[in-house]
């Protein structure tokens, strides 16, 4: 008798535990779904640099320089040694005149190695008003003083 009684209460208990754990699982699922379903917010690729010293005030879109695209094709030393780009976002005062004369970006963007300066939209591609600086997802927004 005693054995049967404890079996019943054991069943009830296990049903109760099962219900609770499935409720918790449901709650977890709802929370997870709420977090993931709207989709992750967009972020720039790691080390994208926005140049906007003059663009906005000149009425063109700010420039995005994608490091990832360039480092697939060129080692760091090409731009940061040969072409004279400082290794600090904001430290390079590059003008369109200099680029047209073949300096900085213009060393390649001359219609021979890469597209020429006629293709404004390809470099001046950021949303108007985007602040200058180094951007990117994947665990960093850049060090404190970028």
């Amino acid at each position: 008798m005693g054995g049967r009684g404890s079996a019943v209460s054991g069943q009830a208990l296990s049903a109760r535990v099962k219900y609770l754990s499935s409720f918790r699982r449901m709650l977890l699922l709802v929370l997870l779904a709420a977090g993931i379903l709207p989709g992750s917010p967009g972020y720039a690729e790691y080390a994208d640099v926005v140049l906007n010293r003059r663009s906005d005030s000149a009425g063109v879109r700010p420039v995005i320089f994608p490091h990832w695209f360039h480092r697939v094709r060129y080692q760091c030393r090409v731009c940061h040694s040969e072409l004279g780009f400082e290794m600090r976002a904001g430290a390079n005062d590059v003008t369109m005149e200099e680029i047209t004369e073949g300096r900085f970006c213009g060393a390649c963007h001359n219609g021979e190695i890469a597209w020429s300066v006629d293709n404004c939209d390809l470099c001046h591609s950021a949303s108007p008003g985007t602040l200058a600086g180094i951007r990117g997802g994947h665990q960093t927004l850049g060090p404190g003083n970028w």
Partner: protein
Amino acid sequence: MNCERYFTPYQLLHCLLMVALSVSCVTEVLAANWQPLQKDNLHDPENPGLRLLQNPGDALSRLPVDSAGNKVDWVKAIQDGYINPRSELLKNKPVQILESDILLNKTGSIPRVRFPHKVHTQWLDCENCHEKIFKSKAGATPITMGKILEGEYCGVCHGAVAFPLTECNRCHSVPWEAGEAPSVGRP
């Protein structure tokens, strides 16, 4: 009787949520690493030029995987020949690869830093770091983690373009032997 129903509303909801979650997980995994330019919150989606630009995923998904930064192991990519980036544009300057490692041991009780010259000189010239950022003489540069987090010293690149500062163990990779670590407060 109730038990003849195939699904309770609760089970049905559970099932639907599971399906939605699985679908979103799969799309998340597929799209997690690289955002297309139209959706990166940086490029102007109205810009007609975007259709001519390469999306990060098109190039980077073919390279060795990493867990942070561009999600690309750039060192492996160049060493194993996945990419062959040019080392010069016009100047015919020979590339100088330096093999030596530097051990930085003023790290308190956390593992010491092994700085490998080799992987750095595969990308950079000596002049990119010396003498402006680092003195050539070992121990002559007052490097601190605080300064690095502010974007000085190693932080000029790491945390901005090279792998980020969340990856502690990649630099702090040489554990102290038993009894060798300096006592706390005496870094």
